[in-house]
């Protein structure tokens, strides 16, 4: 009971902090550019954490996360732009936006189910190529769909997303995905990552869990897409390309496959880095791909591995460091004595 209470307290505190930041933004205490970047960070946290559920926790390999963001973004954009399409006209303003975001997420989840089921049934790497293909196909279909503006994109969306909305979404995403990982379902997913054959032998329905994780991740990708669309007030087929999928992948890898806190940190860091390195845009992707290759070669589990960043981890590593230092000193003394 006390544990649950402290968890709720933590959540409330976090939300209060988020709200305070939003108030500071409204009062223009925080520069508008920074406010924009912080909102993007929060959206990328949603994208990275949900991708981590597939790539890090389940050990599968999706390359089409941007495609699911596109599905969510376009679905939500169609709903908010057309006041009597799909949802009845009584829902207006922010309520409509929230419902549209949810529906965008559901649409992405549905598409995720259709894409995931045939490819996740199989062991091996089919998911990677299917999701890669899916991302491309979505882009081609959107380019040719005149109702949403084709290649020039879908413009004139209302600006519903503010920092607090994105922050709230990221908190919800993190909470749900963390709870999922810590549940028996999550443990089943981890067992699939560690050894799929062994997991199956122990009676874990591997396909079902892979599909569940994939659908959850697609849902949150869809909501993140909706947030992004209503932040930039437009969606174009070019906003959700393969490059975005790679960026999200790099966030997951950089933070550590299976580490939620790692993904959060990496999402914030890489979004910041992308802004700071705007002058070197042409070389950004070269840098990213080199980073991806080198991390995989030298730390295949990602920088943090699957550890969560927490106070106890810090304390632990500090202790280890101190112990090592002591040992070294002792070794030095004995060496000197000899």
């Amino acid at each position: 009971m006390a544990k649950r209470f402290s968890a709720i307290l933590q959540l409330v505190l976090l939300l209060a902090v988020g709200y305070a930041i939003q108030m500071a933004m409204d009062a223009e205490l925080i520069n508008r550019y920074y406010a924009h970047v912080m909102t993007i960070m929060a959206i990328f946290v949603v994208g990275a954490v949900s991708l981590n559920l597939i790539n890090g926790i389940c050990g599968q390999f999706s390359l089409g996360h941007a495609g699911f963001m596109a599905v969510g973004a376009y679905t939500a954009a169609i709903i908010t732009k057309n006041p009597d399409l799909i949802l009845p006209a009584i829902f207006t303003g922010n309520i409509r936006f929230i419902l549209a975001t949810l529906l965008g997420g559901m649409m992405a989840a549905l598409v995720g189910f259709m894409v995931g089921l045939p490819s996740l049934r199989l062991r091996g790497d089919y998911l990677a190529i299917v999701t890669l293909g899916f991302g491309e196909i979505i882009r081609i279909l959107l380019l040719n769909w005149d109702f949403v503006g084709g290649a020039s994109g879908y413009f004139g969306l209302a600006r519903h997303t503010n920092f607090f909305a994105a922050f709230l979404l990221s908190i919800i995403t993190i909470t749900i995905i963390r709870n999922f990982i810590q549940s028996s379902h999550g443990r089943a997913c981890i067992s699939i990552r560690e050894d799929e054959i062994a997991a199956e032998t122990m009676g874990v329905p591997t396909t079902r869990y892979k599909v569940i994780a994939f659908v959850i991740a697609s849902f949150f990708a869809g909501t993140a897409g909706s947030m992004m669309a209503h932040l930039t007030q437009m969606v174009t087929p070019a906003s959700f390309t393969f490059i975005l999928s790679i960026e999200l992948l790099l966030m997951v890898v950089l933070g550590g496959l299976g580490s939620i806190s790692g993904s959060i940190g990496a999402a914030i860091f890489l979004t910041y880095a992308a802004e700071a390195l705007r002058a070197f845009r042409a070389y950004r992707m070269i840098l990213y791909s080199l980073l991806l290759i080198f991390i995989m070669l030298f730390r295949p589990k990602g920088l943090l591995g699957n550890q969560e960043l927490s106070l106890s981890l810090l304390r632990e590593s500090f202790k280890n460091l101190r112990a090592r230092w002591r040992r070294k000193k002792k070794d030095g003394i004995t060496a000197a004595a000899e």
Partner: protein
Amino acid sequence: MTITQQILQQLINGISLGSVYALMALGYTMVYGIIKLINFAHGEVFMIGAFVGFFSITKLDMGFFPAMFTAMIFCAILGVLMERLAYKPLRNAHRVAALMTAVGLSMLFQNLALAHSWIGASAKGFPQVFPLRKFELMENVTISSDRILMLVIAIFLMIALQFIVHKTLMGKAMRAVSLDKDAARLMGINVDKTISFTFALGSSLAAAAGVLFALNYGIVVYQMGLLPGLKAFVAAVLGGIGIIPGAMVGGLLLGVTESAVSAAGGSMFRDAVAFAALIIMLLVKPTGLFGKNVREKV
């Protein structure tokens, strides 16, 4: 134009397009057969091959065949380097790590090409090295000289590959390694060398495919490897991944299906066909047309 003529014409288009897919699919399938890795960078090897051929012709004034040969040699070396530097250290790591490295390499090559001052973002016209002639096989059924060339070279390379795989010692080693790596090593086969050789072979085929593709479509651009790469992979899966004749048949099948769909008025969805074919294949017979169901051993 009667319906038979239409069908024949699309069959010709499809087979010549499919032969390029087949050449690329061979690279995917051989590498997958031997180290169970989808080499995502294969499409970029195709692109680099096309550019090496392009620059050999435009900057070095080579003829078409020497240029294609240069591209094949260049990409063979590139393939070996790729394998040695990026994939070999990860051979025993989790397969997702190797896959991510492959994706990283693919992005790296694409963006290096984009940033390179010789290549850049804009598409370049591939020179028309041979005078273009159209032959009328029947009434309303034509085939261009470039297509004939593409088909002849592709078939020649496939026969050469069959010869290497089935008649040479290295081919025997390749087959042995793909069957059982550890047993092959115990039999005194140099597994590392064999894997490198496989990469060299696959990459040179991709380079040849790239040059032929560029000749046929008349352009080279840094992103040209993405979609053909994806489709070639689908072709490999259609035929049964890891099976060499399967890749050839899969490539031809995909090429024909694609031209049939674009002729039927769905040229917009031409690129979606391969994807749909992949999904259907995975649902119906994931081991591919020629694949046997292999029980997994622990």
